């Protein structure tokens, strides 16, 4: 006691610092993730695609819905010049003379945002319901379980089709908050509110069907975590349920959900593509990778490079999401890591 009293406060603080910097959980995870080469490359690729879509409006050489029905402007090869303005069509043009590069970067913005929003909303619902069910058990648990059973027993694609078919015929059938519509309109650079409503409906449908897996995962995790000693300790110290949930249970149950989230992104992207292909999802003139690919089906015999243009970024993104998911799984749970 006497010793510490003689040391000036500054030095006392220094002395208390550990010699070696201890690693926090997150820096450990990040270090393990950085070692996963494919995941890092994927992250880089994804960031490049995100960056291009972020500045879509600034770098796009043409307006999104610019079209030129002049036969000379149709199906131009990549790196050819516009017959009217002389501007460069980096990736050529489609059947109505629209610039494919412009459409593609707008589409990546729209497709990726749709996937992100749908997966985020679905994961959020899943985490909330799964945590409630797992933590409180009893009545809430059985209700949530029944709802999960109901949703996961539905055959996915047929239901998706019917919902999308019904709802996209009149997007106003589901009341959406105006701020959400405004947000989507601003993110996706839509000029018309109607377009934002259509996309909002698709996001709603995708997230409605995507939450059950996460809820199940979160419930199982929470059931395990709530029996651990530190939760018991927190309860013994007098913490209430809310603070136990937020400070102990959710952070400890969360890692597998992060992995499920990245894989869910790939799933949403695929589902949106499928719907757009069937002509029930997001439709022209809003460009998405899915409907751009769908449109090329009629022309791909004569112009075989056309389907490759929208499939390439789609391919990159879904592979990237999967690799990042793999990398995160290995980083978050070293027990399951290969080798």
């Amino acid at each position, binding site marked *: 006691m006497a010793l510490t009293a003689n040391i000036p406060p500054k030095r006392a603080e220094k002395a208390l610092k550990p010699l070696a910097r201890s690693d926090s959980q997150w820096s450990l995870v990040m270090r393990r993730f950085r070692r996963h080469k494919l995941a890092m490359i994927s992250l880089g690729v994804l960031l490049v695609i995100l960056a291009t879509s972020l500045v879509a409006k600034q770098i796009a050489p043409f307006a999104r819905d610019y079209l030129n029905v002049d036969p000379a402007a149709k199906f131009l090869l990549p790196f050819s010049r516009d017959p009217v303005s002389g501007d460069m069509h980096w990736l050529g043009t489609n059947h109505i003379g629209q610039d494919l590069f412009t459409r593609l970067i707008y589409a990546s913005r729209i497709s990726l945002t749709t996937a992100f929003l749908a997966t985020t909303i679905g994961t959020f619902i899943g985490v909330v319901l799964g945590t409630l069910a797992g933590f409180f058990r009893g009545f809430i648990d059985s209700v949530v379980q029944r709802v999960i059973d*109901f949703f996961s*027993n539905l*055959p996915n694609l047929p239901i998706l089709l*019917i919902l999308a078919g*019904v709802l996209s*015929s*009149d997007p106003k059938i589901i009341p959406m908050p105006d701020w959400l519509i405004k947000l989507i309109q601003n993110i996706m650079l839509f000029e018309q509110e109607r377009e934002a409503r259509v996309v909002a409906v698709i996001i709603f449908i995708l997230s409605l069907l995507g939450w059950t897996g996460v809820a199940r995962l979160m419930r199982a995790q929470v059931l395990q975590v709530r029996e651990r000693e530190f939760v018991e300790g927190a309860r013994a110290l007098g913490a209430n349920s809310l603070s136990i949930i937020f400070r102990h249970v959710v952070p400890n149950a969360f890692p597998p959900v992060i992995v499920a989230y990245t894989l869910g992104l790939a799933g949403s992207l*695929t589902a949106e593509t499928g719907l757009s292909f*069937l002509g029930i999802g997001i439709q022209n003139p809003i460009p998405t990778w899915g409907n751009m690919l769908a449109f090329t089906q009629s022309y791909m015999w004569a112009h075989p490079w056309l389907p490759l243009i929208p*499939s390439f970024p789609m391919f990159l993104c879904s592979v990237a999401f999967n690799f990042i998911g793999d990398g995160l799984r290995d980083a978050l749970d070293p027990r399951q890591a290969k080798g």
Partner: protein
Amino acid sequence: MVNFLVRRIAAMIVMLMITTFVAYNLLNLAPGGPLAELLQQQQNNTNRLDPGAYDRIMQRYEFDIYLMPRYTRWLIGWPNGPINLFGQEMFGGTQVGCLREGRTILKYPDGREVVSDCESPVFLNDLKGRAVSNGILRLDFGTSQGILRGRPVSELLNSRIGLTMLLQGLSSLIALIIAVPLGVITAVRQYSKLDYVTTAIAFLGSSLPTLFWGLMGLMFLTQPLKEAGLPYFPPGTLSSNFAETVPILGTIKPESPLDYLWHVALPVSILAFVSLSGWIRFIRASVLEVLKQDYVRTARAKGLTERLVIVKHAVRNALIPFITLVVTILPGLVSGAIITEQIFSLPGVGNLLVGAIYGADYSVAMAILLISVFLTLIAYILADILYTVADPRIRLR
């Protein structure tokens, strides 16, 4: 076991009822519907509907009946007229629908006057003699409203289901035959060349949509192969219009069994490829997990040959969770490979469903949906039963 089955089947019936109710209401609440096109024509002033035609169309789709009675008519074929109690017809005057909306004053014979929002109400008496199905619960799916108007839905389904079952059954079978051994081998020989190649291909296959593989297959395996003088695949549809000569396979006569087989070969391989890529990854992961278990070490320690350890101890246990994936083949057999059928323009159930949704043929869409929900539920019960067969530790109670 019996107790379990009874409870599960009861739960299944409840689930089925809820699903039909939700789906039926969703479809019927949808704005537009079969009348949308007609109303659009009205606005264009090209084809004015006279009131008689309007009434007839409303009656054909039963849009003049309220949603609830319409649902029960679809479900069990009731009410189909006044309720018959002890030989007496009752409740004949109950209003069950409204043909045309409009503010009117109804004058009853006893002098009452009621202001109503309905210009021409439909009463229970009016339902007498109207065509009605026996109800979907009595396996009568009703009649088609759009695609083949007036023909039984079951007829439409029958004509499509064979192809879908062939597509799905054959592709699942191929996928199973390839995925199980390959998944096990890649796990046992982890980090071998075979493992790297297989895992990479499986990764690509499962991370890209069927749509992508379908279009790629259509693009690279049909016309380009033909031009290169190699055996090629036909570009979609179910049969050729004329005899085609294919290298190795020889001349294929149109509409011969070989012709059909040749046409479904590409879609089947693509479906098989996509599902086997997912399955290989699943089986590989689960075999790797099992190989780390204590009982595998015990089996090795007591001197069993590696072959016996893997086949008898590891694989058997590793395949138990795989049951959940395999049973999903069952609903797929009927609900169809929607996207693949669409890409290759094959007339299967998936194609029918897309057509039904486009054409607002709700009785067809509902029938397909109901059957696939039913089969999904059956598949889950089947999975639980198979679990007990594969793993004696699991008991159903």
